[in-house]
């Protein structure tokens, strides 16, 4: 249960990071908060040639508020998000979700960029980004590009971020007047990975975006559910039942906590609860 041998670099500038990443021989792995990477290394599921510690890059630890968005630096830690006034004001869904992301000591170290970059299917933040239609700023020696969350999460531990690229910012649209948000997850122990969970964003025109986590190979939008709920002002029991039944569209995958059938059952429950708790 010890990490395998590796080399360690702690660059002081973004260009130094990109230089390291561009050298294939180094087999670089970025180290953000390390709260998922270190266990994976201890389990020998990951054995990087060179660990590139990002904690020396101050520009990755900034939160910017623009006219219509909140730009969160990739190295912002969960506890910083949790206590940040602009996040509370403009991204209430994040504030709602964070207490469920692991435990206090993990939230003190874990980062938003790390969670997004890992794309763990059971993590909450990828689903948050999906249902908020967030954008991910990705930087490499070729420049800066913006990837929509909808095309960023490819599969388990697989994203649109290439090996020579670095996630630099997460860009979330500010919550609009009339928007409502819902979230519910079921885990065996508070703070553990959810057996299934869901995030919902409802716009003023009653369009709804619904993203599940812990149910498939990555966080996933439930477009069938969204279609059923779209434009519906009164969420009757029948509408919720229809929405639950449309979850057949998802290819449920089991994990150590539950098989696919159980996941589907729990997904239906969290969907109904999240819809009833929207605010």
């Amino acid at each position, binding site marked *: 249960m010890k990490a395998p041998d590796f080399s360690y670099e702690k660059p002081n500038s973004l260009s130094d990071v990109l230089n390291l990443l561009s050298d294939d021989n180094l087999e670089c792995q970025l180290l953000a908060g390390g709260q998922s990477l270190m266990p994976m290394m201890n389990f020998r599921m990951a054995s990087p040639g060179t660990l590139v510690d990002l904690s020396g890059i101050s520009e990755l630890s900034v939160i910017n508020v623009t006219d219509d968005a909140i730009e969160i630096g990739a190295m912002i830690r969960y506890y910083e998000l949790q206590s940040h006034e602009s996040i509370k004001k403009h991204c209430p869904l994040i504030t709602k979700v964070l207490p469920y992301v692991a*435990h206090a000591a993990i939230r003190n*170290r874990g980062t938003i960029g790390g969670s997004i970059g890992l794309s763990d299917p059971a993590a909450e933040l990828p689903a948050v980004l999906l249902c908020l239609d967030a954008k991910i700023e990705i930087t490499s020696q070729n420049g800066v590009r913006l990837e929509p969350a909808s095309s960023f999460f490819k599969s388990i531990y697989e994203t649109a971020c290439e090996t020579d690229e670095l996630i630099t910012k997460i860009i979330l649209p500010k919550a609009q007047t009339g928007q409502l948000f819902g979230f519910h997850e079921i885990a065996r122990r508070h703070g553990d990975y959810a057996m299934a969970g869901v995030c919902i964003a409802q716009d003023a025109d009653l369009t709804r975006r619904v993203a599940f986590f812990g149910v498939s190979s990555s966080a996933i939008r439930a477009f069938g559910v969204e279609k059923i709920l779209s434009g519906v002002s009164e969420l009757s029991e029948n509408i919720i039942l229809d929405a639950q039944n449309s979850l057949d569209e998802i290819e449920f995958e089991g994990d150590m906590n539950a098989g696919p059938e159980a996941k589907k059952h729990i997904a239906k429950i969290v969907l109904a609860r999240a819809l009833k708790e929207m605010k």
Partner: protein
Amino acid sequence: MSKTAQITVSVNGEKYIEDVPVRMNLADFLRTKLGLTGTHVGCEHGVCGACTLFLDGRTARSCLTLAVQADGTEIITIEGFESEKNASDLIKNFHQGNALQCGYCTPGMLASSIEYIEQGNPADRQKVKEYISGNYCRCTGYQAIVDAICTTIEERQN
């Protein structure tokens, strides 16, 4: 390309300069290099909470932190909870309320308890339970641990 590094850390108010293999985690560094064996190593993948300590004022899993990442930081371990965190009353309440049996979880449990109390949180059993949910106790001590934390908060308020 480096496989070892020199680090400077402050541990419980004392400064140390040591050479460490970069793959050594902070818990092993404290235990084997500094002889501070109060920090316990349980699961080594961040789940059990036994290795929790203070890193620059906030709790962290020392099994998920490399020693080299702690370069330039201030660390407080259970050996310093009385002198650096004024936790004598909490420790006394753990002792008097039988909030420990084998003691393996206690260093991490105290770290989380201290942080909960320091943040000005109330003596609310549900909130305490959520806060210490990242710390496993396998000797059936949770109720007594929650009691000890709540009692300490109430005593400090009076």
